[in-house]
């Protein structure tokens, strides 16, 4: 359900041509905003997993001699990382068990994009900028006045869950995530008057 957000992808491949080739394809995928990271050794892969874990790891199954996916997942059991194999040659299908998907040397950009979208369950249909609904505007006014989710739920006779959904949609539509940012938006667009704002 993520949208427009940056997808972090680590590419572990020792061939500089293949690695940089794949990364330049990833960067140009039209629907996805990808932040790639090059990994060139097992040590680098460990460093990567001990920092900000990427959303996806694309790795040559022969990386570091032989890359054992199952063992790798056991080492980092808490991480919800998706692992895609990067096939540059004919490979024994036994080696490919445990991967979430695979990218082959002759895959098109479209195919690669589809694989990544499917894996992360991205829905790209409603990517167009939508206008705020009346209710969403009302919710903004309440946020700006300093009301809590509970207070808003009582005020609108809605569940807290619904309020949270409204808030999420507002952030998504406006690309503003903080109350302070919404306050500026609300005043500039005359949804509220400065005298009503809790500063």
């Amino acid at each position, binding site marked *: 359900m993520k949208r427009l957000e940056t997808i972090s992808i*680590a590419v572990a491949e020792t061939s500089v041509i293949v690695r*940089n080739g794949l*990364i330049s394809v990833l960067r140009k995928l039209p629907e996805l905003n990808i*932040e*790639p*990271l*090059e*990994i*060139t*050794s097992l*040590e*680098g*892969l460990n*460093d*990567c997993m*001990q*920092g*900000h874990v990427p959303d996806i790891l694309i790795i040559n199954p022969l990386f570091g001699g032989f890359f054992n996916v199952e063992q790798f997942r056991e080492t980092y059991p808490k991480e919800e990382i998706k692992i895609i194999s990067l096939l540059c040659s004919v490979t024994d299908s036994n080696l490919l068990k445990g991967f979430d998907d695979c990218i082959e040397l002759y895959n098109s950009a479209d195919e690669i994009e589809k694989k990544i979208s499917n894996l992360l369950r991205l829905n790209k249909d409603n990517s167009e900028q939508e206008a705020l609904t009346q209710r969403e505007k009302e919710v903004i006014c309440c946020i700006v006045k300093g009301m809590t989710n509970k207070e808003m739920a009582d005020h609108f006779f809605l569940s807290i869950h619904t309020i949270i959904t409204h808030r999420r949609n507002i952030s998504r539509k406006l*690309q*503003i*995530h*903080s109350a*302070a*940012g919404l*306050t*500026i*938006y609300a*005043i*500039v*667009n005359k949804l509220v008057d*400065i005298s009503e704002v809790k*500063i």
Partner: protein
Amino acid sequence: MYNRMCKKGKYKSTDKMSDLICDNYNLLQVLSRFELPLGFGDQTVKEVCDTCQVDCTTFLAVINFVSEENNRMVDNLEGISVRSLMNYLKQAHHYFLEFQLPEIRMKLAQAIDYKNKNEVSYLIMKFFDAYVEEVKKHMDYENKHVFKYVEKLIEGHKDENFHITRYARHHDQIELKIKELKNIIIKYYPANVSNNLLNAVLFDIFSCEEDLVAHCEIEDYLFVPAVRRLEKEVQ
């Protein structure tokens, strides 16, 4: 010379320092954070570093990291001085907090006419100040905890209560909020006839944001792995 104009890639210790800067003026920031002055004539990277007692390997590692197109988890850490790298990061903190952000604040105040106390400009400044406070907290934590820990580590003492991985995991992105401010100004700020001042400050905000991202990437992909090696050695 002519085909080196847009050289991207590995720099060597025998390259001329002046060529480096002409290739990529972003490297000026790196120079000043290593406290390397301009006016180095035709000296090579190695010569300039030696004169100023800067560790050349570390300097090159940073320069090459910054000028590479893609981020890469650095694994060739041989010869990199953690102390020198840390000094670099400290200088960068100083630069952001004492120079870059105050400068942007001044320009922003002027651009949105803060003096006349209109309500929107008041809120924008408030937003900006809250952002700076966040950056300051982020960097203070690094100065006070992470760097202190690393300093002891360099001296051979390992504090068992801290681990660089803990820092690496919680090292959050500090550029998100400034992105939001930028969005608000670009999308929602009421337009005036002349936007020159506002455009100029937006340019600064864009470049500051990029600079902050690059700074955090150096911490994540160069500094943290180097400290991790050091942790292993000290144990």
